[in-house]
């Protein structure tokens, strides 16, 4: 297991639900990824700006208080340092595909999350990390 651990910040999980953040952390850490979490877009922005190394992928919920996923995405795209980070949209909305396209997301995963799909998707963006 240890040999699979990736270095750096790893994956940023943005979701207002503690239990979702917890389970994603558990699943992803179990696979050897480093995980940082944020409860809304604003928190995520400050986490990103404070860290020295950007995450390999951002898992983004859409409906959140304080700063929604859409607002976060706008903010992210306006910041040249952050704009290149791939974003995977996680949402229960039935129009997830359309939303993901509009947001220019790299991928989308509907809630409730199929973890096999999730891991496969994450691996696409984080496998290249040392």
């Amino acid at each position, binding site marked *: *297991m240890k040999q699979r651990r990736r270095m750096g910040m790893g994956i940023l999980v943005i979701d207002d*639900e503690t*239990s*979702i953040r*917890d*389970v*994603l952390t*558990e*699943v992803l850490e*179990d*696979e050897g990824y480093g995980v940082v979490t944020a409860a809304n877009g604003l928190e995520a922005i400050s986490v990103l700006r404070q860290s020295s190394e950007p995450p390999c992928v951002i898992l983004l919920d859409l409906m959140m208080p304080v700063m929604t996923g859409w607002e976060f995405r706008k903010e992210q795209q306006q910041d040249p340092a952050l704009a290149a980070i791939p974003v995977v949209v996680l949402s*229960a909305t*039935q*129009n*997830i*595909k*359309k939303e993901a396209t509009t947001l220019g997301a790299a991928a989308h995963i*509907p*809630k*409730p*999350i199929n*973890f*096999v799909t999730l891991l496969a998707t994450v691996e696409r963006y984080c496998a290249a990390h040392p």
Partner: protein
Amino acid sequence: MRVDDLLTWITQGCLLLIAALTVVDLIWHRDRARIDIALMFGALAAIVLIQGLTTVMRRQVPWLGQVGAILLLAQPYLLLRLVQHFRPVPRPVQWVAFVGMVISWTILVAFPAPLPPPLALLIVAYFVYVEGYAAVAFARGALRTGGVTHHRLLLAAIGSGMLALVILLAGVNRALPAGTGITTPLSRLLALLCMLSYYLGFVPPRWLRHAWQLSELQRFLQAMAGRAADERVTTTLNQLCLTGTRAVGGLGAAVALCDTPSQQLTIRASSGLPALGGSLMASSGAIGRAWHAHQPTVARTPADFGMDVIPLAAAAGAAALLVVPIATAGRAWGLLVVFLNRGPLFATDDLNLLALLTEQSAITLDNADLQREIIERERTEAVRSELLKQTQAAVQARDQFLSIASHELKTPLTSLLGNVHVIERRAAREGGWSERNLQALRVIGDQAQRLNKLVGTMLDLSRIESGQLSIERLPLDLYALVQRVVAEMQPTLEGQTVDLHRPNEMIIVAGDELRLEQVIHNLLGNAAKYSPSGGAIRVQVDRNTTMAWLAVTDQGMGIPQAALPNLFQRFYRAPNVDYRQISGVGIGLYVVKEIVTLHGGEVHVTSTEGQGSTFTICLPLIDNQHMSAQADLA
């Protein structure tokens, strides 16, 4: 020609006319009052005819003269008989009339003309007394009645009074022959007036009757005018009783209306009667005839009243009844019953007038009914729209609840499934878990998945119900999708085999991948679920010129023919499904149909019970060329 001759001729012509009309009237309507009227005027007319005959023959026929005199002397008695029709005549008066008539006849036969003055005066006295009595009786009768009868009785009173004066003048003539010069023209004038009054009183022309009726009707309508709509019915019924009673000089009147459900006549209003209540059966007598034949009816004897009215009539002291239906062309409302102490002299006029009043009342009742119906309908409409509003609000609240509840349920389920996933991976990686524990973990995972699906279905249902189920139509390879779903389902099958047929060409439809995946999943899931004893599941994807289609055929239990039309209704489950064996809530096919319909496609099913079913979905095709053109553009 002398003026007084002219007066005499007019008088005699008038009399003949009256007699002829009364006889015709008697022929048309036979009743006792008409017999007496015809008898009286017939007798008087006979005298005129005898006189005329004598004049034409230019000689006296003694016995003819005697017959004429006898008929003349019978007139007071016959007049009194008429009075008896509408008010009781004391027995002494009856005797005076009868005895007077017999004595006069005797005198006439015993003493050849000219009569000695005292005897002549005796006859005159008899005449004047009875005529005067009749005149007063008619006048009193007139005062007690309204309407047509009032006018007719009044004219009869005037006529009788005039006749009494004529006879009195004849007596004066005999006693004082010197005054002839004045009395003769006067008596001729009075005789003319008498006959005119009798003419108008006993055989009034139609226009005059209508005029009299109208004035009474006007009074009736005025009494009702200006009443508020809600009290109009009560006012109408009370006024009908009052006006009806007065118009025909009755003791009182009652209105009985028909209760719609029980078809019983219930007394609703009355006037001039002891406290009334209860219902009438209208099974016999005048009441029965009036109700069932819709005919204004007169009953002159209690035996003819009808069973149910007899006690009422007895309480009112009535000896005769007038019964008139209250009806319009559309509806028979009930009856107006007027109680009389004597049979009416002019029954037809009385009935006609009452019919006019009841007709107006029936129209008022019709209008009130219509108004009530309109108000009722408006009220019902208001209640209905309020209920509809409440129902819509309730449905909306339910959908909202379902949606929120489903979202809320999804979060813990995601957490649960994620953790099961983590443990399963760890166990696979690190080992050390007993098979029993792993089995228990699988159960947790499977049941959480099942719960997850149910929540998803519930959410879909609420989306469909609130019209929020939306689909994104993007080009997709139908066969590839089917292949993926089949591959995912393979491990869950127990004894069933999937027989997937690849089409000859790529089939591209405009569809929502997630939603169509759900559709294929549901159809395959059903095929497996309802083939509990295994068998092949044939899955075929193909196209015709305009549509792509997917058919899923199983070899399962099949569906009864009668259940097929209901199959796509929500919560419906075919009756051959044993609920304890095969779980389900009856939503899957409903969701399938909704999703396919939103894609502009169709769902079809054919089935033979015991042999299996085939579900086919058709989806609009995207042309390959069109697709490649799009690809080029991109």
